[in-house]
């Protein structure tokens, strides 16, 4: 079992560009959540996907959007990148009442 896998591991983008991050959940998991972790901070909840729909959303602007596919994998899209979007983006997957497992994250740097 590969666990939660995220791609790419590192990414550098220019202000104003758009970025897509990808997540494959742990086998058997149907719920995917995305978190943003700024340097020296705890992860902040962005949104959660279940049954291909956004079930919950944190305090993030509409520039942040996502998608979940029938195979439960998920994408996080960020438009009009700002310098402040530089962070580690974490994906977590879960199933029902079982604990959430986190991926290694994608390190996004906006220059």
């Amino acid at each position, binding site marked *: 079992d590969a666990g*939660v896998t995220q791609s790419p591991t590192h990414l550098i983008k220019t202000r104003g560009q758009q970025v897509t991050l990808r997540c494959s959940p742990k086998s058997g998991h149907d*719920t995917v959540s995305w978190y943003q972790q700024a340097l020296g901070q*705890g992860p902040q*909840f962005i949104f959660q996907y279940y049954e291909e729909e956004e079930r919950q959303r944190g305090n993030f602007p509409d520039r942040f959007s996502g998608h979940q596919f029938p195979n439960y994998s998920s994408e996080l899209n960020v438009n009009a990148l700002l310098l402040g979007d530089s962070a580690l983006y974490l994906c977590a997957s879960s199933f029902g009442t079982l604990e*959430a497992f*986190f*991926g290694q*994250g994608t390190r996004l740097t906006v220059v």
Partner: protein
Amino acid sequence: GESVGLHLPTLSVQEGDNSIINCAYSNSASDYFIWYKQESGKGPQFIIDIRSNMDKRQGQRVTVLLNKTVKHLSLQIAATQPGDSAVYFCAENSVNRDDKIIFGKGTRLHILP
């Protein structure tokens, strides 16, 4: 409001000693708490959890204590080892696990030789 915070940003402990990491939360309705360990370059790793109907739970070398009266929880690590060096986060979620996980800012644990 939503707030889960830790008392100390950094904790240094002698190898072999016990470590105690503290956390305060503000939401009285929180009913499920989790401790995560995050090593450099990795995602958070589940350590132990506790429901609000419990005040203590033990795992392998770890114990979590929950005091709902003062909205405080702690993580105790017995016989701290070099591999315990990491940032530790307390977090809260609903017992249904279908809610967002709210993380605190983290405590960095340094192990002294």
